């Protein structure tokens, strides 16, 4: 925090207290003189007549008043002197403080400007970095997404091809089964009507001979 009052002696409150103290001191001095004169007067009253006492008393009072006035005057002069001195000090210190404050404010302003420039530069750099990273990440993400999509499509295609191939094989297998079944049925019908007993027996003989060769029948 900026110290605007480098010397507390210059504060108005202090000056006020000082003036009050000076006035009190004058009053006390006056009171002391009055009491001394009163004692002298009482002493005189014992020795002299009333009139002389009254004159003396008046003279003393006048003298006391004069002295008191002198003291008060002197005090007033001292107060003015002090006031002027402290006012000067105060003004000088206030001016110095103001100058320091201005200087400090200037420093702050320049620092702030520098910080602002630095901040702008840092922000720009940071933003550029973020943008660059974002660009790289986006590019990487897009590449990965493309690769994944391609891979997914390829696997889907492979699965579809596999399904088609399996279906084709199953259908062909069914057709084959049907072809063989039809062939056997046709042969059964044809052979039953067309093949002679001799031919049938020849095939049976062939079977028996083969069984013998293979030693199926021992």
């Amino acid at each position: 925090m900026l110290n605007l009052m480098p010397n507390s002696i210059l504060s108005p409150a202090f000056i006020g207290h000082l003036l009050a103290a000076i006035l009190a001191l004058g009053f006390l001095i006056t009171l002391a003189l009055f009491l001394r004169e009163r004692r002298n007067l009482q002493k005189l009253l014992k020795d002299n007549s009333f009139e002389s006492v009254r004159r003396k008393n008046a003279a003393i009072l006048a003298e006391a008043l004069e002295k008191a006035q002198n003291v008060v005057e002197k005090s007033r002069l001292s107060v003015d002197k002090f006031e002027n001195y402290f006012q000067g000090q105060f003004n000088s210190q206030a001016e110095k403080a103001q100058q320091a404050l201005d200087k400090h404010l200037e420093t702050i302003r320049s620092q702030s400007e520098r910080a602002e420039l630095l901040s702008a530069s840092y922000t720009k750099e940071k933003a550029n970095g973020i943008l660059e990273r974002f660009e790289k990440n986006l590019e990487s993400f897009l590449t990965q997404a493309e690769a994944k999509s391609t891979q997914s499509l390829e696997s889907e295609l492979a699965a579809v091809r596999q399904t088609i191939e399996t279906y084709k094989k199953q259908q062909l297998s069914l057709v084959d089964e049907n072809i063989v079944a039809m062939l056997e049925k046709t042969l059964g019908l044809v052979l039953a009507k067309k093949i002679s007993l001799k031919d049938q027996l020849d095939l049976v003989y062939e079977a028996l001979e083969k069984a013998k060769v293979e030693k199926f029948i021992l």
Partner: protein
Amino acid sequence: MIQPLLDKILAQTYTQTDALNRLHALKNLLVAELFGRGKSSDRQTAPVSLGKDFYKHFNRNNVYNLFDTLEEKIREIKPLVIFLPFELPEEGMAALGQRMRRLFGKNFLAEIKLDPNLLAGAALVWDGVYKDYSLREKIEDNRERIIKTLREGMKR
């Protein structure tokens, strides 16, 4: 004495069922002849192919024992089961029987069964083991080649 009798009975009989049937017929004939029972026509139906000597071996004392022994011997013969895709007539059975005997020896017996699915040829069962020598099996063995040929034929 049993073996010549058995050979004569089986000479023109090629299945075990036929052999047993023939044996039972002969037994009835001889029992009727020896004990004067049965129909008089039985004597006339006696198979001539067996020869006159065949009947001389039988008398009232041994006829039952001999026929029991013969039946036992016939049942001891292990028959070859032949599955055929067609009904085999009597003359066909004789031809098949003679071929069997040439291949596997005398007194060889078979049992004929019908299986139209075989298409042609035969399937055999020997000693409880089945083996297919039919056209159906040949088609199965050459299945791929047949399918390939048929496919090529269809493409044209």
